[in-house]
C-alpha cells in the first residue's frame, strides 16, 4: 500500500491525508460535565473521534458512549426533515413538510390553545440534551405557560430538593481536597469518569473511601469500606451512622449548637437506630456501619458524593437523602474546602466562577404571575423549593384529569414516554392531547405518536455554551453542519418564538445575542469565546470563601441548617410529610408489605447504570450494544439463578402486580441475592411497564424505580 493510503486508512491527520481535527463536546450522556471531542474530519465527514486533550475535565479521554459518537451522528435512524403525521398515532406514517410549514402549524396550534384555554395548557418538555434548556424555559414563560418541565423531574431535582431542605443551598463534594469521601450510591466509573479519576487520585494521596452501594462496582472495588445495603434503606443507614457519630461524640458540636435547627429532636430520633438495628434494616453489617461512621466523622475534611437519582428513586427518597445530607452538617463538613463546598452556579447548574444573568434569562415572568405548575397541587414542597420547573412525572395525570386546568398540547424535545412509570399510561395520556410535537435526533417510538416531528441534531453539529466547575467555559463551533435538514434545538426554539409572535426582545435579538446578554456580567463575550474552540479558563475567576453561611445565614426558613424541616413542617399530617428525616422502608418491600412479598419475593431495582448505555440513547449503536451481547437482559444473582434453574441467557419472566415482561437472564455475583437489576427503557423489555404510575415519593413525586417487589420465573432455555 502506498504511504498516503496507509496513513489514510489509519486516519492519521497530516497535510497529505487532508484529515483535520475540529473541536466539540459530547452530550450523548449529559451529566454535570461534558467531555471534549476531537473530531477527525475528512471531506466534511467525521471519520474518527477522540477525547480532546485541552478539556480540563475529560483530559483526552472518553467513555464507551462518547467513543461511539460517529455511530450516533451517522445513525440510520436520524430524522431527516420535518414530518407531519398522516396515519393514526403510532403507525409511523408521515409526510415531509417544510420547516416553515412545520413551525407555522405549531405556532398556530399553540396560539389557538392559548386563546381558547390559556397559555398554561401548552407544556414545554426537555429530555436530553440539556444545552437548550434556558431557551426552552424562556420560551414557555414568554409564551405565558408555567409548564416548562424536564427529565430532571426524575433525575437531579429531588437531590437538589433534599439538599435545599437541609441547607438551602446544595454543596457538592470537593473531590480534589477531601480526605474522606463517602460515595452514596454512585458509580462514577460508569457515569462521570472525571470523578472516578479524582477518586483514584485521592486514593493515591491517602484519601479514605467509603462507598454505599447495593451492587459491587468498580467504585466499591476501590473502597476502604463498602456498605452493601438493600435498595431503599439508605435513610436507615444514615441514621445509624448518625447514632454512632452522636453517641461517640464525634460530631461538630460548635456547628450543631450554633448553626442548626432541630438538632435535639434529631438526636433523640436517631437513638432508634443502633448499628445492630441498622444492620437489620439495611443488610450492611453493624461493625461496618460503626467503622464507616467513625471514618467519615474523623477524617476531616470529609465529603459526600451523592448520585443524581439513585437514592431518590424510592418511595422514601427525599427523607433518606435528608438523613444522608444531615451527616454533612453533623460533622461540620458543610461549605468547607474538602467537604461539601458551595459554589454559585454560572450556567446550567455549573459554576465557572463567573457571574451571569442566567436566572433573569430563564425566568422572564415570575411564578406568581402564572397559574400553578404541573404537579403543584400534589407536591407543595416542590413548589416551595424548586425554582426551575414543574414536576413532569405528573404530566400524564394532569393530561388525564384536566385539573386544575386542561393540558392540550405538549412540545417535547427528546420526549420518551418510556421514561415514566406505567409507561403505557403515559403513552395513553399523550394520545389524549390535541396536539403533540416531538423534536428528536432519531425516529423514536415516541416520535411515531407525534403530530409533528422535528429533526434536530447532535452536539457536534451545533454551537452551545457550557460551563465547567473547574472555572472553564466553552462555546462550541459546529464540527460539521447539521446533517440533512435537521436544525439545532436552540434554532428551533428561536424559530418558534418568532412564529408565535412573542413580544420578547431577547428572542428577537437572536441566539448568540442572548448568550452575550447572559454572559454580560462576567465580561466574557462570544467573540472572545469563539477564539477558543476547545474552551478556555475563565479570566479572573470569582473567589469563593468557605462557610458563606457565617455572613449570609442559610437559605432556609430558620436561617439555619435544618435537621428538622420548617418547610415540611407546614404540611405535617400528610402521609410522608415528617419534618424529621424519618425512615420508612420502601412502600413495596418485605418490611412494609409482607403479604405482597410472599408472592413477589424479589426486590426489583431498575436503571442502575451499565457502562455502555445512558438511558435509551445508545441502544441503537452497534458499537456500544456489542459490549453487552444479548441485551435486553436482567442481572440476577448466580445463586438465585441456580435455585430457580435459570442459566445464562435463558428467558425469564419478571412480574409485579401491575404487569410482566420477558427478558434474558444475565447471571452475576456482583449483585446481592434476592435483588434483580434491570436497565430501563428498552422497547423489547420495558421495565417501567411494571410500575404503577402512583408508586412515588410523596415529597418529590419521584417514582420508586429502585425498589419494588417482583417475581422471577423461568420461561425458556436460551
Amino acid at each position: 500500500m502506498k504511504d498516503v493510503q496507509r496513513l489514510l486508512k489509519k486516519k492519521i491527520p497530516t497535510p497529505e491525508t487532508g484529515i483535520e481535527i475540529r473541536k466539540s463536546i459530547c452530550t450523548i450522556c449529559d451529566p454535570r460535565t461534558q467531555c471534549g471531542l476531537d473530531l477527525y474530519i475528512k471531506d466534511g465527514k467525521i471519520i474518527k473521534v477522540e477525547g480532546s486533550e485541552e478539556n480540563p475535565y475529560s483530559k483526552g479521554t472518553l467513555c464507551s458512549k462518547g467513543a461511539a459518537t460517529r455511530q450516533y451522528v451517522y445513525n440510520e435512524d436520524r430524522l431527516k426533515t420535518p414530518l407531519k403525521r398522516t396515519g393514526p398515532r403510532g403507525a409511523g406514517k408521515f409526510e415531509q413538510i417544510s420547516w416553515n410549514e412545520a413551525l407555522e402549524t405549531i405556532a398556530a396550534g399553540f396560539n389557538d390553545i392559548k386563546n381558547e384555554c390559556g397559555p398554561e395548557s401548552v407544556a414545554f418538555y426537555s429530555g436530553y440534551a440539556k444545552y437548550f434548556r434556558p431557551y426552552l424555559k424562556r420560551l414557555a414563560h414568554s409564551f405565558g405557560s408555567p409548564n416548562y418541565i424536564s427529565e430532571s423531574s426524575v433525575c437531579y431535582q429531588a437531590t437538589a430538593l433534599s439538599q435545599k431542605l437541609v441547607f438551602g443551598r446544595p454543596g457538592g463534594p470537593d473531590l480534589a481536597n477531601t480526605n474522606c469521601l463517602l460515595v452514596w450510591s454512585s458509580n462514577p466509573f460508569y457515569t462521570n469518569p472525571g470523578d472516578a479519576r479524582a477518586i483514584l487520585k485521592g486514593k493515591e494521596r491517602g484519601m479514605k473511601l467509603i462507598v454505599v452501594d447495593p451492587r459491587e462496582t468498580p467504585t466499591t472495588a476501590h473502597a476502604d469500606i463498602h456498605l452493601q445495603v438493600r435498595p431503599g434503606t439508605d435513610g436507615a443507614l444514615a441514621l445509624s451512622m448518625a447514632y454512632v457519630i452522636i453517641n461517640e461524640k464525634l460530631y461538630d458540636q460548635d456547628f450543631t449548637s450554633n448553626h442548626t435547627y432541630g438538632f435535639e429532636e434529631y438526636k433523640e430520633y436517631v437513638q432508634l437506630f443502633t448499628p445492630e438495628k441498622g444492620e437489620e434494616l439495611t443488610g450492611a453489617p453493624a461493625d461496618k456501619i460503626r467503622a464507616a461512621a467513625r471514618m467519615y466523622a474523623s477524617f476531616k475534611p470529609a465529603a459526600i458524593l451523592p448520585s443524581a437519582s439513585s437514592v431518590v428513586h424510592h418511595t422514601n427518597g427525599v427523607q433518606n437523602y435528608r438523613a444522608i445530607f444531615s451527616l454533612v452538617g453533623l460533622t461540620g463538613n458543610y461549605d468547607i474546602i474538602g467537604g461539601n463546598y458551595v459554589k454559585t452556579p454560572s450556567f446550567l447548574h455549573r459554576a465557572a466562577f463567573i457571574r451571569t444573568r442566567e436566572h433573569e434569562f430563564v425566568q422572564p415572568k415570575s411564578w406568581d404571575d402564572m397559574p400553578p405548575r404541573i404537579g403543584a397541587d400534589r407536591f407543595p414542597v416542590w413548589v416551595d423549593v424548586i425554582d426551575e420547573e414543574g414536576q413532569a412525572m405528573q404530566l400524564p395525570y394532569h393530561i388525564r384529569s384536566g385539573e386544575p386546568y386542561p393540558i392540550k398540547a405538549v412540545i417535547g424535545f427528546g420526549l420518551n414516554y418510556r421514561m415514566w412509570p406505567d409507561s403505557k399510561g403515559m403513552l395513553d395520556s399523550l394520545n389524549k392531547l390535541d396536539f403533540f410535537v416531538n423534536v428528536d435526533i432519531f425516529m423514536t417510538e415516541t416520535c411515531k405518536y407525534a403530530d409533528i416531528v422535528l429533526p434536530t441534531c447532535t452536539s457536534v453539529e451545533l454551537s452551545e455554551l457550557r460551563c465547567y466547575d473547574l472555572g472553564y467555559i466553552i462555546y462550541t463551533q459546529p464540527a460539521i453542519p447539521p446533517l440533512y435538514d435537521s436544525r439545532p434545538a436552540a434554532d428551533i426554539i428561536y424559530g418558534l418564538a418568532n412564529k408565535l409572535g412573542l413580544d420578547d426582545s431577547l428572542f428577537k435579538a437572536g441566539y448568540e445575542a442572548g448568550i452575550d446578554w447572559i454572559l454580560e456580567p462576567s465580561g466574557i463575550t462570544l467573540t472572545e469565546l469563539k477564539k477558543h474552540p476547545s474552551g478556555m479558563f475563565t479570566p479572573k475567576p470569582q473567589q469563593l470563601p468557605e462557610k458563606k453561611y457565617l455572613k449570609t445565614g442559610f437559605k432556609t426558613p430558620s436561617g439555619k441548617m435544618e435537621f428538622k424541616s420548617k418547610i415540611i413542617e407546614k404540611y405535617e399530617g400528610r402521609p410522608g410529610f415528617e419534618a424529621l428525616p424519618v425512615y420508612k422502608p420502601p412502600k413495596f418491600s418485605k418490611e412494609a408489605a409482607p403479604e405482597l412479598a410472599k408472592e413477589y419475593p424479589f426486590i426489583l431495582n431498575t436503571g442502575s447504570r451499565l457502562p455502555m448505555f445512558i438511558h435509551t440513547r445508545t441502544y441503537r449503536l452497534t458499537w456500544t450494544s456489542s459490549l453487552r451481547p444479548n441485551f435486553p437482559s436482567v442481572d440476577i444473582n448466580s445463586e438465585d439463578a441456580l435455585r430457580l434453574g435459570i442459566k445464562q441467557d435463558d428467558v425469564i419472566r419478571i412480574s409485579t402486580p401491575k404487569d410482566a415482561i420477558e427478558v434474558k437472564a444475565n447471571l452475576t455475583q456482583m449483585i446481592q441475592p434476592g435483588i434483580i437489576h434491570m436497565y430501563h427503557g428498552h422497547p423489547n423489555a420495558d421495565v417501567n411497564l411494571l410500575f404503577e404510575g402512583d408508586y412515588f415519593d410523596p415529597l418529590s413525586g419521584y417514582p420508586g424505580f429502585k425498589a419494588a417487589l417482583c417475581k422471577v420465573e423461568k420461561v425458556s432455555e436460551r
Partner: protein
Amino acid sequence: MVKAIYLDINLCCGCGACVVACMDQNDIFPEKGQPAYRRIYTMEEGQFPNTSFLYVSAACLHCADSPCIMGCPTGAITKDRQTKAVIVNGDLCIGCHSCALACPFGVPRYDLEEKMQKCDLCSERVEAGLQPACVRVCPTGALQFKSINKVLGEKEFKFVGNIVSGVHKVTNRR
C-alpha cells in the same frame, strides 16, 4: 525504544471505551460480521457477601516470540520491524484457523471472508507519534503505552503484557 500496551488491572473498570475506540479507529462494524480486536473479560469469584471480581481489557499482546507466527502456514503473520507489532497480511491469510490454535490468549478472530482480524498496535499511529486508539481513550489510565524496559522496572507487578506472565490472583483485588 519499543513500546507495548499494558493494562493496570487495578484500574480497568470494564467500561469498554477501548473496545469502541478501536472499532472507530479501525472501522469495525459488528453488524457486518466484523470481529472486535479488543475485548473485555469479567472474572467473578466467590459468593455474596464475599465476592471479588476483575475486569480485563485484552487484545493481541504482540508476543515477543509469537506462537501465531510460528503456526501460520502461509507467512501471513509477521512482526513489524519498527514497532514490533504482530501484523496480519490479509492477502496471504487462508482462514485455516491455525493461529487460533496457536494463540495462548484466544486472540484471533475471522471476518466473513475468513481473514484473521486482530489488533495491529495502531502501528501507523505509533509511527506518527500518536498512541494506540485504545490507550488514548482509556478514561481511568488503565491502558498505557509504555516502553518495555520501563514496565520491567516497575516495582509493583500489576501488568498483563507480552513480557510478563501476568500472574494475578483475582482475590488480591480487595
